[in-house]
């Protein structure tokens, strides 16, 4: 509850900070300070110090899983703000509003990790989506940004419509919005319920950009201002996965066996399309968009092999993927040229940046000693334990091998190629920026060595 | 099965509807006469005096003339919408009278007949709903004309009406807190039993409502959609014949209806001041129920006179002044009125 209420309040505070303060520095620091406060408040609730005791009629249900997830999302946002707050200033004039929208999205994240009713799920998805439409189009003078925003909005509205229809059908079949009641509902309207769940599955797949509902992703991620792409591709996507897994755990559980086929299809399609298409990209930003689709394919394994192992896996995956992607985007923002060639000779110019970037990329590719390895490992083990066919797991490993190709292209460009033209430059970076990146890389390596400390809180 | 419907009741309602709509049309016609006479009086002229005694037949002549005028639909306009605009305006004007209690229950041919067409439990919300449809008439007409003056006037009119609708809705909430009902008949009944009109408790609310009613009816000082010296003739610039007549009629009917609403909500409706109707009816004096509607008409007459008085007294606002008044003054004031009323009522109840 702390997270939801305070993120909303902080969002309003940020909104008004733009009215009262003119100093960008002040607004930026306020946002970072509030973000830290939000993280602390959420951690406090995890320790049992919830500040609110409100009768929610069981519409929200705060579990340690959700709270740990909030912690990961808020910590990632905190690091994101530390790294990229200056770049947010470059996007447009409404600096305070951008921060306010980020806080509002985090409010949605708080609901997405704790909903216990389909109505709340709908609210969470909408609270997350609507600010994103605005952020995508925040580069108002840029036609690509406008196009991306409009595309995202139309497609998002469409998928929300599908979701509502699904919820309506489920309500028709069970007479309730509550997840618990749906799980135990007396059957009798199987067709209605199955139709509703199918529509819901489609809508959620759309929101996490799983194939074949991924078409909006590359254009939107490419068109949005890079600094917001970073936020969208990491924290938001992970949060919707958290909602997805909770939904699956409750609503789909009674008939989980019959959903395996549909899920298998989605996973295979997502992994295949994401990885193969990423290979052919010339722009790193676009490559990352496809890579995010590919990573979504792995995260879907958590649904497939739903178990405590899968739950741990999704936490680790969210943390590893968010940390690495935020880092890569933060470095990408400093490049003048977003193609692979732009990275040529980075190791000579900025050895520290090139080194941490390598760690992030290795983590995304799932190389051992990084968090990404254990994340993928947990996912696949969960799938095997739940009795998945072996060929699916092998297919996933093969796809991970393909992903190594395009991640290593960046590393190759950084270390083994020299910049051919003079105008390939990197924006100057501060020492703080480097320190934060090193900390981030250290976290990834530590998580790769001791993944367990992330879960200690989930069970106690 | 169909026989189960009370056909007499339906017939009675139909007659009532025909009477009330006709009365409001006649009143609208004579409002134009009154406007010209009052203007003449204030400007030391005679006003219309040729058609009939004191020019009393003038509105009939004006109305009749509209039938024989040529219909012109500009060839660049959207034909369907061009015709739909005035029809919508007229229809919304004709629909509001449905929920207003024009009087108590009277005896006709041995039947007790309620002088309210439909006594629905969301009465005032219905009025709001229908009134806000009125903006479509203006907007569609102005846009379909495909004339720059019309479009500008329609835009102005639409944003003015929606802006003042906010303050109007807010000012009414304080009143509803006191009555606890949205039914107009209940609101009138309460004022009749207590003998104190709502305006005594809600002077500020009434004032805000009055100002907003002026703006909603596009009357001076808020008649920007029809500001002749900047916009020629306003949103109905391209209209002629009865389509123009509908716009003008709708405007005067709206003025009449908003006067009725104000009289009903704040001035006791058909309550006869200083007379205890309930006691008289108990003694068998049922004729008193026939006086009620007349009293209501007198109250309404006062408001209509006020509309015209203001028109010939106060100059027009500038557009930014109009918007500032609506958004930055009336809305906070109405909110304050609401909160104060709530606190006071709860405090006194203790």
């Amino acid at each position: 509850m702390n997270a939801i209420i305070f993120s909303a309040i902080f969002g309003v505070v940020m909104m008004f900070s733009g009215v009262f303060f003119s100093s960008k520095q002040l607004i930026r620091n306020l946002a970072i300070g509030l973000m830290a406060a939000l993280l602390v408040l959420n951690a406090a609730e995890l320790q049992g110090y919830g500040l609110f005791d409100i009768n929610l009629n069981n519409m929200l249900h705060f579990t340690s899983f959700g709270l740990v997830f909030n912690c990961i999302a808020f910590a990632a946002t905190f690091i994101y703000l530390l790294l990229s707050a200056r770049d947010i200033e470059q996007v447009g004039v409404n600096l305070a509003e951008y921060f306010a929208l980020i806080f509002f999205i985090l409010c949605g994240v708080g609901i997405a990790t704790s909903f216990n009713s389909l109505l709340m799920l709908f609210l969470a998805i909408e609270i997350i989506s609507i600010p994103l439409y605005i952020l995508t189009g925040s580069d108002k003078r840029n036609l690509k940004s406008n196009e991306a925003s409009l595309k995202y909005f139309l497609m998002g509205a469409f998928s929300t419509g599908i979701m509502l229809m699904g919820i309506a059908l489920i309500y028709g079949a069970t007479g309730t919005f509550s997840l618990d009641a749906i799980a135990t509902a007396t059957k009798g309207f199987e067709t209605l319920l199955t139709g509703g769940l199918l529509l819901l599955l489609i809508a959620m797949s759309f929101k996490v950009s799983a194939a074949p509902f991924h078409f909006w992703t590359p254009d939107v991620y490419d068109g949005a201002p890079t600094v917001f792409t970073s936020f969208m591709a990491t924290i938001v996507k992970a949060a919707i996965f958290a909602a997805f897994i909770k939904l699956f755990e409750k609503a789909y559980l009674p008939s989980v066996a019959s959903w395996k086929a549909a899920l298998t299809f989605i996973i295979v399609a997502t992994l295949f399309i994401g990885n193969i298409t990423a290979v052919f990209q010339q722009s790193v930003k676009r490559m990352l968009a496809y890579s995010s689709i590919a990573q979504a394919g792995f995260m879907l394994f958590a649904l497939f092999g739903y178990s405590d192992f899968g739950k741990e896996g999704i936490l680790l995956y969210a943390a590893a993927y968010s940390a690495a992607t935020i880092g890569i985007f933060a470095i990408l923002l400093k490049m003048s040229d977003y193609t692979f060639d732009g990275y040529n000779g980075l190791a000579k110019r900025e050895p520290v940046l090139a080194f941490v970037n390598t760690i992030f990329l290795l983590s995304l590719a799932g190389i051992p000693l990084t968090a990404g390895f254990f994340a993928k490992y947990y996912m696949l083990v969960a799938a095997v334990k739940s009795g998945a066919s072996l060929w699916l797991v092998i297919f996933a490993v093969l796809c991970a091998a393909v992903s190594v190709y395009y991640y290593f292209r960046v590393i190759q460009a950084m270390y083994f190629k020299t910049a051919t033209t003079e105008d390939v430059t990197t924006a100057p970076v501060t020492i703080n920026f480097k320190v934060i990146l090193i900390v981030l890389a250290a976290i990834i390596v530590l998580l790769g060595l001791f993944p367990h400390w992330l879960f200690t809180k989930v069970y106690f | 099965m169909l026989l189960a419907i009370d056909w007499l009741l339906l017939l009675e309602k139909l007659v009532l509807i025909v009477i009330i709509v006709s009365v409001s049309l006649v009143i609208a016609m004579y409002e134009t006469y009154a406007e010209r006479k009052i203007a003449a009086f204030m400007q030391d002229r005679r006003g219309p005096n040729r058609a009939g005694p004191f020019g009393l037949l003038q509105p009939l002549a004006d109305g009749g003339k509209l039938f024989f005028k040529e219909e012109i639909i500009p060839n660049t306009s959207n034909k369907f919408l061009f015709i739909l605009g005035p029809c919508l305006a007229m229809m919304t004007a004709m629909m509001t009278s449905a929920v207003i209690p024009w009087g108590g229950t009277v005896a006709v041919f041995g039947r007790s007949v309620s002088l309210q067409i439909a006594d629905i439990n969301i009465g005032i919300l219905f009025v709001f709903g229908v009134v806000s449809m009125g903006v479509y008439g203006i907007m569609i007409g102005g846009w379909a004309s495909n004339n720059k003056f019309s479009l500008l006037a329609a835009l102005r009119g639409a944003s003015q009406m929606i802006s003042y609708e906010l303050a109007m809705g807010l000012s009414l909430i304080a009143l509803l807190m006191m009555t606890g009902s949205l039914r107009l008949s209940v609101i009138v009944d309460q004022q009749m039993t207590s003998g104190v009109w709502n305006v005594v408790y809600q002077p500020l609310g009434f004032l805000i409502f009055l100002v907003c009613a002026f703006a909603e009816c596009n009357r001076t000082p808020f008649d920007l959609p029809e500001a002749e010296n900047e916009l020629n003739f306003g949103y109905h610039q391209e209209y002629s014949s009865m389509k123009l007549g509908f716009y003008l009629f709708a405007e005067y009917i709206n003025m009449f209806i908003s006067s009725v609403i104000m009289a009903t909500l704040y001035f006791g409706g058909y309550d006869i001041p200083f007379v205890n109707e309930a006691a008289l009816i108990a003694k068998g004096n049922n004729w008193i129920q026939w006086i009620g509607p007349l009293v209501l008409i007198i109250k309404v007459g006062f408001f209509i006179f006020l509309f015209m008085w203001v028109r010939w007294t106060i100059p027009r606002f500038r557009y930014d002044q109009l918007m500032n008044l609506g958004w930055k003054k009336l809305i906070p004031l109405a909110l304050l009125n609401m909160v104060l009323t709530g606190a006071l009522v709860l405090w006194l109840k203790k």
Partner: protein
Amino acid sequence: MNWIFLQVKNPITDVSSAGSYLPIAIQLIFAVLFIAAMMGLTHWLGPKRNTADKLENFASGIESHGDARQPMAIKYFLVAILFVLFDVEVIFFYPYAVNFRQLGWEGFFAVLMFVGFFLAGFFYIIKKGALNWED
């Protein structure tokens, strides 16, 4: 045929039944018929001598340039959007106003909070200059 308004004994006078809306439907039909009749009548009675000049848009006698299908000031649009926002909030007050006495002080404080949100949004749009008409 089980009409809703037949289920209550005297549906038209019972305010809580849908039948109480029946007279409104009658009035609507009456209004539509009246308007249609009037439009038809004037169409039939009026002269029809159209000329090209008559059918042109009126621009105070000078030749009109272009038409009115062009972008309009964004401010009107802004007012419309803000109206939608605030009107929804105003509508939320209505159910409260009707049940105000039963809810007592507790309800009053809850609504004060809502008024606070309302004012926060209101204050924000004013400070942002969304309602400034004199550029």
